[in-house]
């Protein structure tokens, strides 16, 4: 019997941080490029997609609440299909960590640690995330719980602090230009990130009061969507869609507009540092899920010994992932989201097969 160590409150706080950190730090530039004024609408649609995907996962997890999907999946679709599918999910999560790590090192190398070898930065990031992942599931959720209010303050305070720079006439664009067609690329892109909450399936036996998971999912998805919109709107009103589209990290430029009196010229290194901590928590969780799945597939008793080797492998892959920002963007736009969607929807296949099997069994029993 697995100990129910993750509370609903912790889940709510963790997944809010999980979703918003990556979007606000790294995705806003892409989102504005794709949708401009329609981006907030895209965020809302993306959140709805995320909720639907997560709901499927929860519905499937509920059928065997005390067992791990990696274990019982083989009973549903046979071992020969189960293991390649699991390998695909592992690889996708692996790619997610690598992409995020690449983005971190790119941001730091561009603005703060120019000239530092990327492998050193990645090594330090890897040490942080693997150190947390080694402590197990409790660690990430507790960390998010402790960091939640501080993270939220840093996320909420930015739109407020830049309000003096807002060009309010640009706000008309939300009413006149926004369209669902324009919003769709953002929705598709962000839907995969909101859908990352479907990782709940892999940790479902650890969740206490699991019957409230759906309600919690709606709450954290809505809060995360609201937070993202609260950042998108000021960026569009302050920088305008054209300038914002051409910046790699428009959020960073917004932060640089903040003047905290005559004490500090800019707050961006501090805020970025705090956000990095949030991203580390997220990456630790994904790393934990990967090692957990892999250890179950390899029939190992503990997942702990796998964490450092997996992390080392991810770091090496990150170094080789892309040589420039352009190369990274072309790779990122070339189907990563689709890959993530597939990995998130694989459990749906299991769900359908499981339901069909059960029905057939019931029918057979009835006929007997």
């Amino acid at each position, binding site marked *: 019997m697995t100990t129910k160590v993750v509370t609903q409150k912790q889940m709510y706080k963790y997944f809010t941080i999980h979703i918003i950190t990556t979007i606000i730090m790294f995705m806003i530039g892409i989102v504005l490029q794709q949708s401009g004024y329609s981006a907030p609408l895209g965020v809302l649609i993306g959140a709805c997609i995320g909720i639907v995907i997560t709901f499927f996962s929860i519905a499937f997890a509920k059928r065997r609440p005390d067992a791990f999907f990696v274990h019982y999946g083989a009973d549903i679709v046979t071992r020969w299909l189960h293991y390649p599918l699991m390998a695909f999910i592992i690889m996708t999560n692996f790619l997610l960590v690598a992409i995020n790590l690449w983005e971190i090192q790119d941001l730091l190398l561009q603005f703060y*640690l120019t000239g530092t070898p990327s492998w050193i*930065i990645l090594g330090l990031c890897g040490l942080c995330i693997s150190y947390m992942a080694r*402590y197990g599931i409790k660690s990430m959720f507790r*960390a998010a719980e402790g960091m939640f209010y501080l993270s939220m303050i840093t996320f909420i305070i930015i739109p407020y602090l830049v309000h003096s720079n807002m060009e309010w006439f640009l706000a008309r664009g939300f009413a006149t230009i926004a369209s669902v067609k324009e919003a769709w690329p953002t929705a598709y892109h962000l839907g995969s990130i909101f859908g990352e909450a479907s990782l709940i399936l892999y940790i479902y036996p650890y969740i206490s009061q699991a019957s409230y998971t759906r309600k919690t999912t709606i709450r954290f998805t809505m809060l995360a969507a609201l937070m993202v919109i609260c950042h998108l709107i000021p960026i569009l009103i302050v920088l305008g869609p054209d300038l914002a589209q051409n910046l790699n990290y428009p959020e960073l430029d917004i932060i640089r507009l903040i003047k905290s009196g005559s004490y500090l010229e800019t707050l961006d*290194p501090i805020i970025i540092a705090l956000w990095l901590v949030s991203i580390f928590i997220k990456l630790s969780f994904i790393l934990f899920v990967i090692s957990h799945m892999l250890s179950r597939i390899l029939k190992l008793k503990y997942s702990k010994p796998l964490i450092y080797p997996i992390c080392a492998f991810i770091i090496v892959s990150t170094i080789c992932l892309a040589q420039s920002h352009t190369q990274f963007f072309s790779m990122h736009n070339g189907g990563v989201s689709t890959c993530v969607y597939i990995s998130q929807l694989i459990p749906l296949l299991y769900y359908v097969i499981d339901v069909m099997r059960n029905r057939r069994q019931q029918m057979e029993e009835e006929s007997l």
Partner: protein
Amino acid sequence: MKQEEKEKREKLVQLEQQNEQMQQQSQLEQLTQREQQDQQMKQDAMEQQESIASSPELAPRLEWFKLRLERVAEVVFHEFTVDYGHSCVLIYMSGMFDIKQAERNLLEPLLGKVFYMKDELTQYLFSRNQLPVTELHWVDRAADALQAILQGYGILLFQGEPRMLVLPYANYETRSIVEAPNETVLRGPREAFIEDIGVNISLLRRRIKSPLLKTEEYTFGRHTSTRVVLAYMEGICKDSLIHEVRRRISYLDIDGVLSSSQIEETITDRSSSPFTQIQYTERPDVVSSSILEGRVAILVDNTPIALLAPTTIFSKMQSSEDYYQNFVAATAIRYIRYLFLFISFLLPSFYIAISTFHAEMIPFRLLVTVASAREVVPFPALLEAFIMEISFEALREASVRIPKSIGQTVSIIGALIIGTAAVQAGIVSAAMVIIVSVTGIASFIIPSFDLGLSFRLMRFPLMLLAGTFGIFGIACGMFLIYTHALNLESFGVPYLTPMAPSNRDSAKDVWMRAPWWRMNERPSFAAPNNRNRQKKQARGWKLEQEDLE
């Protein structure tokens, strides 16, 4: 030919050496065998003698005690005869036993009477209401009697009586109760624990006059036989916690327990962590309030420090003064303490990071001032900070060790003269002196010495990270420390409770010092069925008054 001879000689030397080694080994083996045999014989003899010591005959028993206490200078064997002809021996350790009391309460009445029969004597001594001694008891086993003698009691032996009377007149010099030297307060009680465990328990009992205050006594240390007491409130403290403490200390088997830190390190959850997971205090009021919260206190004889478990990082940030002051002031001071905790931990690293990597953060005028001050300094900020911090730590350590009469002089020389000279010589910048001084002052604000020490130690790797990666390095360092602290537990209670995992009830006494009339419940680590501390309407009189008005 010569080579052959050489080889032969070498072989001969080798053979001789081997022979010598063999001989030495066999001699050693023989010696150890003999020693073992001797020890075995001694043990057998001791066992035989112990059986003799339990016999009613006085002479063999006395021999047994003399054999055991051979070459112990302070032992006294006072042999005397009670009328008519009943031989007795009083054995005690001089300096640990109050012989005057024994004379007044036992020897004088005993020698002033005449006992015609042996039964009369035993009746007189062993019936509780005959002698003017309240805690009179006796032992049957000679080993127990010996232990009693070593603890400062007197033992009275009689001819023809196997029972041995224990005289509870242990009396040795102890320090009197003085003001707590390391945890001073302005408004609260001044008393501190001393080295005598009996006095320390009485200090607790004076505050908690309840039969539910349990004090379980254990003895540890094969040679020291140190008394260790577990104190807790029955019904308030969780049974599982008491069992866990008992279970952990039961593993302690050591030759001597000389301080509470030995027990602390043995029973702590993770001893390799820089954060100590057991709280210690020298104040009986702190121990009493902790016990009333549902915690367990461990008192060790010969140590004026009590251990408290479980503990969290936040309970180490609370001072007993907080609970004696107005809650508004106490809350404000608590926030200042949290602020200075971060300053003591992060300020030097932050300065290094900003001056090395993020100069754009500093306003222009300040940047010019800092840069002009650093212009003459030949070292990078990291090295400069390391030099200053290590010097400061050395000064602090020296001030603890130096005799008090010259301590002040040294600290003035260290802080003022060397600091000023270093700045004037251009070895360090004035800004760095300010940073290090503020950090030093900030570290004194942390109420728990061991928590302050933990942060002081972790400051150095953080400075290194700041000097290498700037604020990003600090973030990574903080993340690693946070992760570590997050996963620490003190007897099953997470170290960062009530922040992570969050606990609203316990947070009342963490983020602010709630007024006493609002602290209705005990912290979460108390027994769940007994968390009510007081009636919910402690200030009901005010509502009543408002209704009347």
